């Protein structure tokens, strides 16, 4: 067990896959010579060579399309789209091909493709490069959507993504690459659809994923000093979603708040709120609330950007309003 970064945790799984499965290759913009925009693949080109680590043109649709073709032909590709913002250029390949081919071929063709991308905001990258669009992909049947919150999650969930025979949208958070955490040295897999109870408490359930787990846990720590005990759920995957864990916690605490960087309107938090009221209505002691990003294009100015993102103080205030 060692304390390593989120970035290093991802590297460990990628290296393990390249070393142990001949079918695995990596493909993406600047992942080779440059080592990746977030340095996740640094040194891999030298270590594994051009056949396994391919730099591509700036043409996201082509990159994903080639990955789909390779996966259909029996390889296990991982394509990196740098950030979720650029995935919009490949969304036709992702939604119309990757997610549909198993169905359209009557189960004859699998697409075992891992598509990695960085999402989230907080690094002053401006409105066009600060999206949290995970709910767009979670909307589509046929896709799995993975949102690791910790180095431990990153290593184990990426392993499961490679093991899966279907397309997996693997969304890392830009603000988490340097986060450190305890990670076992050996390889391991974290099953999809199993949320982690990051904190235990009886008063309110805070439902979070990816970057928002950090804010939720921070708020929970401070609220504990006020005598309010929060159950913090780290969802780990949005598709499949661990509905049972959500309902179990809500039935215990009778209250829930969803925390997400994404916009509130039409977002994933609304989906969770709907599931809770459909299945645990008689267990609710108050409305299910959302602590979401502000309903604006992400501001560039640092102070405004922070104000547009859910902060610990926002979560604490919402908790106090319903406890």
């Amino acid at each position: 067990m060692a304390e390593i970064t989120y970035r290093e945790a991802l590297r460990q799984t990628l290296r393990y896959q390249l070393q142990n499965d001949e079918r695995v290759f990596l493909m993406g913009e600047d992942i080779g010579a440059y080592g990746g925009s977030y340095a996740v693949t640094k040194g891999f080109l030298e270590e594994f060579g051009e056949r396994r680590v391919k730099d591509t043109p700036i043409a996201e649709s082509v990159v994903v399309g080639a990955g789909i073709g390779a996966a259909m032909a029996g390889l296990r590709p991982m394509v990196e789209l740098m950030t979720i913002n650029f995935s919009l250029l490949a969304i036709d390949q992702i939604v119309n091909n990757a997610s549909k081919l198993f169905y359209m071929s009557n189960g004859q063709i699998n697409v075992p493709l891992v598509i990695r991308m960085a999402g989230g905001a907080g690094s002053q990258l401006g409105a066009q490069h600060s999206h949290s669009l995970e709910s767009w992909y979670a909307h589509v049947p046929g896709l799995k959507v993975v949102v690791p919150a910790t180095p431990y999650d990153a290593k184990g969930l990426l392993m499961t993504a490679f093991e899966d025979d279907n397309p997996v949208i693997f969304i890392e958070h830009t603000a988490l690459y340097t986060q450190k955490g305890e990670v076992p040295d050996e390889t391991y897999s974290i099953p999809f659809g199993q949320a982690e109870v990051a904190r235990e408490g009886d008063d309110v359930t805070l439902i979070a994923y990816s970057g928002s787990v950090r804010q939720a846990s921070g708020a929970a720590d401070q609220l504990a000093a006020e005598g309010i005990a929060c159950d913090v759920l780290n969802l780990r995957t949005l598709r499949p979603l661990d509905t049972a864990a959500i309902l179990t916690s809500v039935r215990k605490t009778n209250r829930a708040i969803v925390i997400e960087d994404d916009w509130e309107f039409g977002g994933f938090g609304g989906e969770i709120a709907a599931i809770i009221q459909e299945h645990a209505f008689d267990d609710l002691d108050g409305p299910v609330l959302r602590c979401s990003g502000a309903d604006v294009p992400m501001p560039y100015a640092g102070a405004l950007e922070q104000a547009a993102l859910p902060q610990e103080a926002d979560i604490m205030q919402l908790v106090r309003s319903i406890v």
Partner: protein
Amino acid sequence: MISEVVMPQMGADMTEGTIVRWRKQEGEPVERGEIIAEIETDKANVEIEAFEGGVFRKILAHEGAVIPVGGIIAVIAAPGDDISTYEAGASAPVARPAAPRAATSSPPSISVAAPTAAVVAAPDPDAAAAANGRLRVSPVARRLADERGIDLRQLRGSGPDGRIVKRDIERTATTRTAAAPTAAAPDAVAPAAERGGTLAMSKMRQAIARRMATSKREAPHYYLLVDVDMTAALAFRAQANATLPDDARVSINDMIVRACALALRAHPAFNVTADSETFTQQTRQNVCIAIALDDGLIAPAVLDAGAKTLAQIARETKDLVARAKGGALRAEEITAGTFSITNLGAYGIETLIGIIQPPQTAILGVGSVTAQPAARDGQIVVRDLMKVALSADHRVTDGALGAQFLAEIKRLLEAPLLLVL
């Protein structure tokens, strides 16, 4: 932290209360849960406790003042808190504004409507909503109250915007554990009668308990008893049934339903429904008949019985009994009754004195028909007598009127041809 003390709602129909006595003086420290005032409602005197601790800073309603539910009557705050917004309204109660809660904005600041000079403030829209029976209750609180037989209208919510939340139910439950029935284990093997212990009240038992208690509490009953000579009625019935098919046979009860419907037409004062404020004269005679079920009873109405023949009533009653036991009654049959008959004659009961079904005005309790010696023209003869008891609401009618009504029922049953004329 500023805490407004408001006129609480004790019961769904309470709209205002009177300050009887303040137990605290301005400036005194007060602890959460401490009694700070006595108030008088329509039904009882009640003590109000502080929901927050602090200093009892300001009295906003003097003793004797009548304050609408939800009106602010006092302010508890920390010594340093600025309560100047309340000072202006000294001795005049301030209506509590219905502050909509914005989930993502900062906590709602204390804002008050402009104080009025009148002693009675404008009614609080929230309280009005509650008075209409729309209590703010969280789903889990509603479920737990239902399971534990707790009347939500008796509770004061401690949640946001006065919502009754789970902890309010749990507090109530712990203060009355001895009295509160607990849910029976669903997988219990031995019948309750052998096992002993506490049992949950079924929904039907709860409804009966609530309605009967309401009736006895709010409707002052008076009772009139009389013997009805049913000899002619029995002969009439035997003659009629000899020619009728089985599904049209007339029972004694059918004749009583018809007699009551006709008597109600002649004495409409007994065909009145009452709420706390007004009486409503009903124009149709919807006569309910009490039907025993496995776990209680139900009293659906023969609708518009005053306009129906005895044969129609006989057929409808059979249908009504069958559907009541099968749980297939229509809403109107359950809710639209204007008068009731309860009959335990089949069990050999001599006299049955019923409890009025709210919001009706009267009920007729019917005993068994038995052959008894009776004096007729100076001779002792054997006649088929039946004791009936009228229970009637003294708010709506008086005994003399009841006597005339009951005499009309007796007259119709003793001359049964009148039932078919």
